[in-house]
């Protein structure tokens, strides 16, 4: 009998009914799969499945790209996938490692810089050793958009990687409330951001229209087809990253920072009277430091381009009128002293001719100078046992 059952049936010619059944069953299966996908929302889980740190080396910075095919990278909103691709996820912390996580904007990430020309790379090149004999190993968690909330999101996620210190590079432009939900990474992670808003009582509207809240249909396979395709493409780009070491398309031509300005001193809706701790997102910075808990956070006011062109007596650069930036510096100094933050102000560390295409993007040599200063500060802090909070400005 068993043998009879194994005998293959002769091929039947396909008929209309057979085709109809195939189409109906395929359609029902497809609908079911989509519904299950939408209900389970497996994207974060899928994001953790990564060929990076397994088949391909981990990336040295978080994926971001405006030219995917030339940069062999792309911008994702899936934090799990972003971190799974980072070398941080692949390197188990050694006993003698002093782990430094750098968080910040495009300047920290290294816009127009190769992976060997970033702040992190230069800190690591210095082969720093702390007084206790631990080797300083820095990881680049910068991301090229300006928003403290975006930084907080990354810091929150990065805490699982056992940092010994977090270096958070900030600039005034990342503080205005208008900028907090400006970045797609924040907009596309509404649940995580709302959770942070609630936990730290942040002055950000959790019901803002800026958040991208996916409907049921948008959570189906059809609705998430772009995100799924991006995940797959991102894994494939791992091969190119491994082969070429390229993770950014670096244009050889770009416009230098603006030197001459209109006689305009406006800065968002702020005035010298209203720029205060509560009118900008200092609470987000404070939340990050609270989230870090026992891990010290070194806040750095990053260098800016200082123009000497027309109306430069009114403005430092394209971003900042002088009054706003000066008031911000004073505010940060006061906040650091009042709250015992580890704070360093490197606002005028870099000469004007060492900026590339914006008021915060630096040349490799300027980046190396800043890295050297940060390295020294990290060592100082480590030597003092993270007791001193009186790190003044340059």
């Amino acid at each position, binding site marked *: 009998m068993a043998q009879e059952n194994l005998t293959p049936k002769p091929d039947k*010619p*396909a*008929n*209309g009914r*057979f*085709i109809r059944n195939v189409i109906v069953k395929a359609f029902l299966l497809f609908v079911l799969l989509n519904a299950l996908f939408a209900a389970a929302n497996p994207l974060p889980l899928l994001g953790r499945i990564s060929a990076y740190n397994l088949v391909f080396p981990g990336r040295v910075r978080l994926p971001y790209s405006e030219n995917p*095919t*030339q940069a062999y990278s792309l911008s994702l909103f899936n934090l799990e996938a972003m971190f799974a691709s980072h070398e941080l996820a692949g390197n188990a912390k050694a006993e003698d490692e002093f782990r430094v996580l750098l968080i910040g904007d495009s300047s920290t990430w290294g816009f127009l810089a190769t992976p060997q020309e970033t702040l992190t790379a230069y800190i690591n090149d210095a082969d720093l050793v702390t007084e206790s004999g631990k080797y300083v190993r820095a990881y680049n968690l910068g991301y090229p958009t300006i928003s403290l909330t975006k930084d907080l999101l990354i810091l929150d996620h990065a805490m699982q990687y056992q940092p010994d210190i977090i270096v958070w590079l900030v600039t005034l432009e990342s503080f205005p409330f208008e900028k907090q939900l400006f970045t797609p990474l924040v907009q596309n992670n509404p649940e995580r951001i709302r959770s942070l808003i609630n936990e730290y009582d942040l002055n950000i509207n959790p019901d803002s229209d800026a958040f991208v809240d996916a409907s049921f249909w948008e959570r189906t396979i059809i609705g998430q087809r772009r995100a799924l395709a991006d995940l*797959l*493409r991102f894994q*494939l*780009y791992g*091969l*190119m990253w*491994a*082969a*070429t*070491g*390229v993770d950014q398309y670096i244009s050889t031509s770009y416009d230098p920072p603006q030197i001459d300005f209109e006689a305009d001193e406006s800065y968002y809706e702020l005035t010298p009277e209203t720029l205060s701790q509560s009118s900008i997102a200092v609470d987000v910075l404070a939340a990050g430091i609270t989230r870090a808990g026992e891990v010290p956070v070194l806040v750095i006011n990053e260098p800016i381009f200082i123009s000497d062109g027309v109306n430069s007596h009114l403005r430092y650069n394209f971003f900042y009128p002088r009054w706003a930036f000066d008031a911000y510096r004073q505010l940060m100094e006061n906040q650091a002293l009042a709250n015992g933050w580890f704070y360093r102000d490197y606002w005028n560390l870099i000469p004007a001719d060492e900026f590339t295409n914006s008021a915060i993007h630096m040349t490799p040599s300027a980046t190396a100078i800043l890295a050297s200063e940060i390295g020294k500060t990290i060592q100082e802090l480590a030597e003092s046992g993270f007791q001193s909070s009186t790190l003044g400005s340059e």
Partner: protein
Amino acid sequence: MTLTHLLVFSATALLAGVLVKERGRGWMLLVGSLLAIYWMQPASPIRNLDFWLPSATVAVAVIGWAATRSGEDERSRENLISGIVIALVVIAVGLTRYLEPLCCLTPTRPPQATQIIIAIIFTGVLIALIAWFFPKRGILLNLLFFSIIAIFLVLKTEGLAQAASAWLRTQTRQSTNLASGLDIGWLGFSYVAFRLLHTLRDRLTGRLPDVSLQEFVIYVIFFPAFTAGPIDRLQRFIKDLRKSFNLGSPEMVSGARRILVGVFKKFVLADSLALVALNQTNASQTSSTFWMWVLLYAYTFRIYFDFSGYTDIAIGIGQLLGFQLPENFTQPYLKTNLTAFWNSWHITLAKWFRAYFFNPLTRFLRSRQNKLPLPIIILISQISTMVLLGLWHGVTWNFVIWGAWHGFGLFIHNRWAEFAASRNSAPQSPGIQKLYNWSGIFLTFNFVALGWVWFFLPTPSLAWRTLQTLAGI
């Protein structure tokens, strides 16, 4: 061919199979193919060129028919109607410029109707003049044969294509400073040219059957095979065209399966591999031997899945329309030698070159009074055929080297096979035979893969540097 094209073509083929009856099939294929070639034509920066190029394809096809038809006009009425239908379709495509919601089938706005009508009249007069001035068909056929090759040369030679672009830009009063060889992207011309050259040669040798204008134009611009082949023979094609066809479940299942396989190969496998395949940019960025091999293999599989995927789609749509187009790829990367590879890679193109270049050349060399030694004849024939095949892709040194690479490879295999046969060794054990086969597959695959370096890199120096990296030098 994009996914949208594919979806529309498949649906049209299905609908046509179900709805169109015997007599309407030819007209449906004619009108469908005419509309398809306008729709698929990519945009050109030269004004109206994306209308004129498909129109030129139609004109060339009609002229080709006029030149190859026999003197007897048994179906003159049907041919006249076909000519009028073709003209009306071309005019209708042009008229979409006046219908805002429908505008346009072409990527940019077509030219004015008067220009189109003048062009149609001009083509008609040209055909009449040809018939008048060339009573002896041989001269006309040869003239057309070399004219097509001349157009081909212009399109495939960067400098000439750029000069042609500049000339066209002058005609349309556009700046010649921006002229580029890429401006004249004449979709499907390569395959149209092969079909026309085949009909012209076969007419000269008396092997071409009589076909109507409708049949001839359908053969030349048959939309499933228009962009990437296969290159069918007219003799075989018209058998399918003339046979009675009713779309049934077997054809539907078989065609749909073939289309799905093709879509998977092209739009999933090939397009994914394209992200990691070796190219001009990453070849100069990669210094590791290991990763260079990985990228090369990615390219090797990408080109196969891309091309064979298109062929699967063409064959699948063809099946829905009642055509069994010839196979173009039969597991070429699993062949044990280079000769077998070229019998299974782009089969219809290889057959075309064999029929219209390799065989005549070999016959000529063998029939000379001062006979050359056989190995020399084989060497000359193999290399010249493969170099010509390389030049078909573009007139560059890299394509010449790629052709020569394969020509030498085929020659060496030919000599090796001759040598092995002469030894007439005893049958080998299955184990040894298996090892022999796998070694053959490995060697052939890597020989072909290394050949692609010449094929896709633009300059010999970059290709050479890439080969050095692959060799770990």
